[in-house]
């Protein structure tokens, strides 16, 4: 198709990691489809890392689609907006994927609520120099953009220039290493120009001089499409698409940075310490929309997938829609489903309450079948660790998962700390490969919670 052949084979990668089955073909060909507004949405006041928003509306208030309904003054915070027009039913506790129960603004939809369509049309003509860095940052903050790759760190804080930690390199994370999920892939295919626009805006805002777009080489189309589109853009000299090797967790920012820049982010540190900003492709797309169209982050692309889902696909979903509704929209489940996961099977959170609403960081809803988790470890019995060392081999952070996990299990937290429990990013590789089926990641996570609690209690 192109006169120049684009190399889509990734050479770059990081030490460790593993290869879970991809299972992406379930949804890879499914175009992003807008989801109509349901009867009710519950917009969580806490959708990101940092301070929890204060509600700006009260019970009974009427809200417009796109209206800011929660915010706070803290630096590390992003406002939330209503995705629909309707009436605030209540502000009450709702199931939250991370916090268990958390305050949400529950809005009953009015009858007339047009379905918002994605991608209001970006061409290759965006000149980011029309916007000042400050303007971009403000727009990002006002639109309530937070990292959509998982952690949900307020993006403004990430891209804002910081004199103490000058940024040089911007990495756009299009790896999507998690099995099943294809939302980023579809975004890259369908919103290519928007991503590039967002990338340029983010580059402008952060003052980075080099930009790499890292894409795993199991998505050759995405690499090609991005490369082709890039050529038609102006100011594209320093933006490079880097195919990286397909390996889980290539999408972890530390791993991606290692793969592309051959640099290690200090343990317990953050990328800016080595002058790097990493942004997810969905995040940059949202930046473009926010800056150019002044449109807040009220919808996002969610992959609804899994062998148990009748019509799996990628959907443009109003934030606050409940998982239940979303699954129903996809035709419900066909097989005996066993586990509903927000996110992918490696890092996602299994939820119990299907009323849990979608948040800004939910990139997928994966429903696993009984058979699948039957094969997976937790239904099977744990056997004792045989010290095979596989977990050490795959740990991308070069930790000693078995030692840490067993220390936690035996309540020896000082040992766990000694083996750098804090360096674990809970990627799940170790649990995935363990032949003894030990929930290493689970124990490590537990230990981290323990330690955090201990620290909290200590000053008293």
């Amino acid at each position, binding site marked *: 198709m192109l006169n120049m052949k684009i190399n889509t084979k990734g050479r770059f990668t990081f030490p460790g990691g593993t290869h879970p089955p991809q299972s992406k073909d379930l949804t890879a060909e499914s175009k992003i489809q807008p989801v109509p507004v349901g009867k009710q949405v519950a917009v969580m006041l806490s959708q990101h890392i940092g301070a929890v928003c204060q509600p700006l509306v009260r019970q009974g208030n009427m809200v417009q689609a796109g209206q800011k309904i929660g915010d706070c003054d803290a630096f590390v915070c992003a406002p939330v907006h209503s995705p629909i027009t309707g009436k605030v039913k209540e502000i009450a506790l709702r*199931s939250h994927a991370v916090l268990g129960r958390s305050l949400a603004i529950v809005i009953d939809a009015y009858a007339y609520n047009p379905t918002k369509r994605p991608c209001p049309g970006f061409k290759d003509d965006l000149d980011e120099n029309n916007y000042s860095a400050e303007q971009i940052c403000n727009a990002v903050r006002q639109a309530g953009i937070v990292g959509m790759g998982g952690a949900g760190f307020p993006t403004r804080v990430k891209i804002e220039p910081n004199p103490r930690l000058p940024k040089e390199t911007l990495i756009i994370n299009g790896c999507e290493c998690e099995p099943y999920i294809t939302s980023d892939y579809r975004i890259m295919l369908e919103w290519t120009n928007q991503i590039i626009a967002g990338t340029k805006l983010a580059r402008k805002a952060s003052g980075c001089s080099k930009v790499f777009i890292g894409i795993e080489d199991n998505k050759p189309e995405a690499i090609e499409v991005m490369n082709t589109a890039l050529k038609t853009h102006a100011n594209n000299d320093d933006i490079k698409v880097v195919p990286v090797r397909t390996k889980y967790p290539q999408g972890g920012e530390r791993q991606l940075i290692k793969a592309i820049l051959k640099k290690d982010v200090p343990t317990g540190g953050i990328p800016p310490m080595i002058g790097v900003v990493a942004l997810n492709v969905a995040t940059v797309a949202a930046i473009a929309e926010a800056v150019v169209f002044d449109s807040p982050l009220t919808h996002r692309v969610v992959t609804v997938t899994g062998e148990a889902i009748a019509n799996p696909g990628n959907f443009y979903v109003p934030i606050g829609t409940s998982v239940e509704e979303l699954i129903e929209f996809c035709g419900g489940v066909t097989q005996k489903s066993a586990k509903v996961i927000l996110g992918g099977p490696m890092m996602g959170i299994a939820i119990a*309450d299907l009323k849990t609403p979608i948040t800004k960081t939910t990139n997928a809803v994966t429903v696993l079948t009984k058979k699948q988790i039957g094969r997976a470890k937790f239904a099977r019995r744990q056997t004792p660790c045989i010290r095979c060392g596989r977990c050490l081999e795959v740990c991308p952070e070069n930790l000693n998962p078995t030692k840490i996990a067993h220390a936690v299990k035996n309540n020896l937290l000082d040992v766990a700390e000694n083996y750098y429990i804090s360096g674990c990013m809970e990627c799940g590789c170790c649990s995935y490969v363990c032949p003894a089926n030990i929930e290493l990641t689970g124990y490590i996570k537990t230990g981290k919670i323990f330690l955090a609690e201990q620290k909290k209690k200590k000053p008293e």
Partner: protein
Amino acid sequence: MILADILELWNSAWPAGLTMLGLGSGFAVVLLIASEKLKVEVDPKIEQIHEALPNLDCGACGFAGCGQYAKAILENPELLGKCAPGGQQASEKIAEILSLQISNSGAPKRPIVHCRAHTEDKTYYAIYQGIPTCISANALPNVQACKFGCLGFGDCVSACKFDALHMVDGLAAVDYGKCTGCSACSKACPRDLIEMVPFSQENMMTVACSSKENGKATRAMCKVGCIACGLCAKQTDIFSVEDNLARLNYEKYKPTDKEETAMEKCPTGVILYCGKNAPEPRQPAKKAAAPKA
């Protein structure tokens, strides 16, 4: 004849006796001087504990001698009872010394579990298949519907060194006969359900719930949760309702009829007694059960 024998014996014996005499007195001098010249001030409490130990420096406790062990006990009383030679006696004595340090003003503190939902009282959305500890389960959303109630995996039970806590149908129950008030359980509970309460009475009344959900939500999740109806607070002002939850002011608590009435009025039966001889709590279903004597 005998005399000669004795004399002979004496002759062969006196050098040994003298050597020993010399050695003995030599060491006596040196040690006496040393004990005065090289004296180091130590914490009198440590000294006291040290005195109570057998001073054998045998290392059976796992520490480098009695002095170190004494120091360690003072810092962490949980290490009590590791001295094999000292045995029970020494432990008791040290416990005495230690308890003198702890100001014994006011009533002894004992734990109260602020939840009364057994497995059958609770609503579950899913089956938990993870690590069977409360802290792990608590890290996941909605392992059980109520985010505030007892998870029932017994982190507190394993924290208690005195076998004073047991899981009863998915709810932690304190055996007040065995509890020493060490507060280990309270620290262990990830949901902060266990509060150390000054037990001014043998049996304390409590509102055994921690749910901050509103009444309706609580009802949906738990048969026995506090629905914040406020009936108890109407009876007496030692109850107060805040954040959708009734609380009892333990400092002011005195057993009077008013409290008894509040307890009977409570529609869900979350108000109950804890303590050594606490009566069985009322079943919520039998709202009109006869008042207890």
